[in-house]
């Protein structure tokens, strides 16, 4: 087994364990910590694939800003242990059915696409270089994708205004 494959399996196991722990932990803070583990493991996988900049952004924005916001809100609202209710009894059965259907669909797609990748594996698929990838990425963002990039800044502005309006206490 090559070193890359070993690293992949370690990180993959870490992320799956984190995701399972997100489900089984009772306290929101523990769930948030599990999610952070998943995110850091995914950042490691991005590094493995040579996507350095995405890995760094993943940790800085997801790990350092979004999840901190979650932890902050959990601490602010003093959220306790999750209480178990089953008021909507109807939802359980169709929910599981839908989840199974989705799992089957995704598994079928992945299984079908597996053949596709083996076939294409022979071509000269260029792997994004480790040194130039950040520079190429910035070139693409500010040249080819400049318009959507500017749109996201408007989106963020609207989100900030929305958050302020929502959380503002009128008195």
């Amino acid at each position, binding site marked *: 087994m090559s070193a890359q494959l070993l690293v992949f399996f370690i990180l993959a196991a870490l*992320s799956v364990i984190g995701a399972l722990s997100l489900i089984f932990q009772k306290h929101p803070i523990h769930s948030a910590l599990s999610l952070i583990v998943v995110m850091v493991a995914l950042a490691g*996988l991005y590094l493995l694939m040579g996507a350095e900049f995405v890995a760094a952004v993943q940790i800085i924005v997801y790990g350092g800003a979004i999840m901190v916001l*979650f932890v902050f809100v959990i601490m602010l609202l003093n959220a306790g242990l999750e209480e178990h209710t089953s008021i909507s009894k109807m939802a359980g059965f169709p929910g599981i059915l839908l*989840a199974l259907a989705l799992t089957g669909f995704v598994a079928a797609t992945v299984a079908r696409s597996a053949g596709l990748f083996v076939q294409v594996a022979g071509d000269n698929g260029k*792997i994004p270089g480790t040194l130039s*990838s950040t520079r190429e990425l910035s070139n693409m963002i500010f040249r080819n994708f400049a318009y959507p990039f500017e749109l996201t800044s408007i989106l963020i502005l609207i989100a900030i205004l929305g958050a302020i309006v929502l959380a503002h206490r009128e008195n």
Partner: protein
Amino acid sequence: MVPTTYYIALSAVLFGLGVLAFIFKRNIITIFMSIELMLNAVNLAFVAFSQRTGKLDGQIFVLFVIIVAAAEAAVGLGIIILIARNRQSLNVERVDLLKL
């Protein structure tokens, strides 16, 4: 080199776990976190495809997803704070009225 299929399979598993968490959890914040988990799973697939095809479009899409997730988190957590203030509960099943 790790086969792309492995990454896609991992991405599918993580997405499925995100869906499960979304269905089974009762706390609004945790439900919100499971959405983030699903977004992360999708991002992994994007980066894997980007690596497979040798094009950077996939990575750029991931960056956009992360930006949108940040905006979504800001608004979503604002809504959660409002709900918690008005309902005194974070359980989704206690939020069963159309008005706050």
